[in-house]
């Protein structure tokens, strides 16, 4: 201890301290980020990576650059993980329909096989979240609680996606899409990769079990339909007001005209 306190004013002490600090934060970050890598690694072969690279060069490299290192038109994909590729390509968002505030959903442009190969290639460039396996997405298991999922959804997701998951607007043309009909896999991947403007909800933030709850909640509200009748888009008071002014008052006015057209 004495030696340490004697050298605390040594010219190199500050540098040593800086190095120590960097090592500690780096180490913690490394530990934390490995905790976020999804558990189930689907088996990929070297040929998948090779085929994926070919597809990537042909379809993605224009914007994302050779070796996925990024260009002015598209970000680097090193370390985004297989889940990100599976989400973006699997929902048809990539390749982009057009440059705009946000990637639009459209019919997927690649087969599942091709998507898997590209995912394998991007995953081989750097560690990132993997495509979730069946057991992570299974919402029928013991202890899955949709009510807890609803609570988590309202606290973490509803401010953009709307409490009924009907979607909502963000700034300057960006938006959070409605979640009706989105598959459990894509919902999970969106949470771990944070596509477009969505923040990443890593496993330290929302645990895999809680993600399962959220998916279960979304499935329940998807399946139950609307108990009170047609939901008018689940958009809340705006569609209700529009409906009563147009349809409600319209019918009433038709009746008033009918009643006064036969006076006696």
């Amino acid at each position, binding site marked *: 201890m004495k030696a340490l306190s004697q050298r605390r004013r040594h010219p190199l002490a500050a540098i040593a301290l800086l190095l120590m600090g960097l090592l500690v934060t780096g180490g913690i970050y490394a530990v934390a980020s490995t905790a976020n890598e999804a558990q189930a690694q689907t088996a990929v072969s070297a040929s998948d990576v090779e085929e994926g690279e070919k597809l990537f060069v042909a379809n993605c490299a224009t914007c994302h650059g050779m070796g996925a290192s990024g260009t002015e038109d598209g970000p680097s994909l090193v370390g985004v993980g297989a889940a990100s590729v599976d989400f973006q390509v699997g929902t048809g968002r990539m390749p982009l329909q057009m440059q705009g*505030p946000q990637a639009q959903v459209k019919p997927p442009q690649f087969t599942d096989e091709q998507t898997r190969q590209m995912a394998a290639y991007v995953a081989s460039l750097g560690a990132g979240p993997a495509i979730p396996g069946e057991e992570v997405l299974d919402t029928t298991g013991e202890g899955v*609680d*949709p*009510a*807890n*999922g*609803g*609570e988590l959804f*309202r*606290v973490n997701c*509803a*401010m953009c*996606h*709307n*409490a*009924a998951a*009907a*979607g*909502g*607007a*963000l*700034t*300057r*043309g960006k*938006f*959070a899409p409605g979640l009706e009909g989105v598959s459990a896999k894509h919902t999970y991947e969106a949470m771990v990769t944070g596509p477009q403007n969505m923040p990443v909800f890593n496993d330290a933030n929302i645990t895999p079990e809680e993600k399962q709850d959220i998916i279960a*909640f979304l499935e*329940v*509200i998807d399946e*139950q339909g*609307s*108990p*009170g*009748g*047609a*939901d008018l888009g*689940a*958009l*809340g*008071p*705006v569609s*209700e*007001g529009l*409906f*009563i*002014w147009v*349809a*409600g*008052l319209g*019918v*009433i*006015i038709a*009746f*008033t*005209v009918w*009643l*006064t*057209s036969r*006076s*006696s």
Partner: protein
Amino acid sequence: MSSSTVVNEYQPKTSVGRITNFVDSRVGGSAMVKEFGRKIFPDHWTFMFGEVALYTFVILLLSGTFLTFFFDPSMTEVAYDGSYVPLRGIEMSAAYASSLDISFDIRGGLFMRQVHHWSALLFVAAVSVHMLRVFFTGAFRKPRELNWVVGSVLLILAMAAGFTGYSLPDDLLSGNGLRIIDGVIKSIPVIGTYISFFLFGGEFPGTVIIPRLYVLHILLIPALILLLIAIHLFMVVAHKHTQFPGPGRTNDNVVGYPVGPVYAAKAGGFFFIVFGVVAAISAAFTINPIWNYGPYDPSPVSAGTQPDWYIGWVDGALRLMPGIIAGIPLEWEIPFPWGVNTLSLNVLLPALVPAGLVFTLMFAWPWIESWITKDKREHHLLDRPRNAPARTAVGVAGVVFYCVMWAAASSDLIATHFMVSLNDVTYWLRVLFVIGPFIGFIVARRIALALQRKDREIALHGRETGRIVRLPHGEFIEVHEQVDAYKRYTLVNFESHEVLPAEADVNGHVPKNEKRRAWISKFFFEDRVAPVTPAELEAAHSHGHHGEVAGEHDKASISSH
């Protein structure tokens, strides 16, 4: 029957007759029916919106009574254990839990909730349309100014009833709405925080607001509404109903049909029609799906949070207000002797100024108009909106002003559904907020004047038949057909205000106020279209075609036959 005084008394023959005679001879019902049953009401479909408002209010009382049997207005924390799975085990207030029970566990409960909510929306909509009809036809003029004021108070009470009811289920949506009200109250300088603490019984949200709103919603506000409806209807009977101008209709009579028996039956039937429409809507379309929103918790805010439509315009004004104008922030911290107070003009101004402006103009309009026109006579004949271009233009400007704010309340949905940027929607609506009313005023007045000119044309020269005839010398003419006398009557028989120049008072001075009035009068009426005079009509019709009268040169270009 020995006494000679009862010789002529009515002797009922059946038991029902005896009972009704017994009641009638004690309460005098037949005299009332005789008096009221012979009351004449004119017939026009636009006169029925007040009825719709009244009937939806009755539906509200009926369905609301049902809901009070099962609703628990308490903010006690309970764990939900009803049949709605996605909320089971969640902590929530007893108010929200009982609203969920009404929706899922009480037979007919969800239907009754939807009847209550849909009829509330229809109630305020019917009140609004009724008021627009009264405004645009000039039915607020003497002697009905006070009834217009009563109606305006009813509109405010209807909005208050709606908002207090919207807040009762204590779901996330209504809690967010209350939070905005709390923010508006707190933006009132100095006393705002005290009022907020007084209202919520401490820091927002507290545990007393739902019971307090409940008392307002089921007791005080409906009682006030009922009282004002009684006054409103009493005045309608006292003033008699207005009527549109037409042959035989004057300011001293009412042309129409008596209440009994046809109107009474029709009005009764119309109640069931309105009830049926509301019930059909409630059975087929969901409203306020509170189970989607979850229990209120001050931390989450859902996207797409809006108030019900009638509060939307105030919400829209809040959304439109910038926080900084031309580099000047609208939030100031003002040091007072007792400490620093925050003055949040970015909340205070949009929450109070547009609503204050609209309501002040609305209440004062009957007096403003009679001040400008110096018209203090009684009016029982309505104006067609085109025949009062200035008033119609003011009304349209008001409607545009309201609708811009209304649209702003749904700016996020406009952005997502029309694929445009939310920011751009806000910028455009800000522009429209300022210039929209002016554009509305100018366009509405031009359209009204154009329609008046068209009416004049038709009255003088008849309607265009579309039949083109070639005369022997080669000229083509279009044959015009005279309209019949009844139709012509409605085209020519209206009052039209003229510009009244400023008048000097007894001392020969022209007061500043009078000059101002004269300026507005000139602005309103300088380009008026005068009604067709008998002389003009005579001249136009006497020599068949090419009727031209002095002072009519402006329309000479329009071909006439």
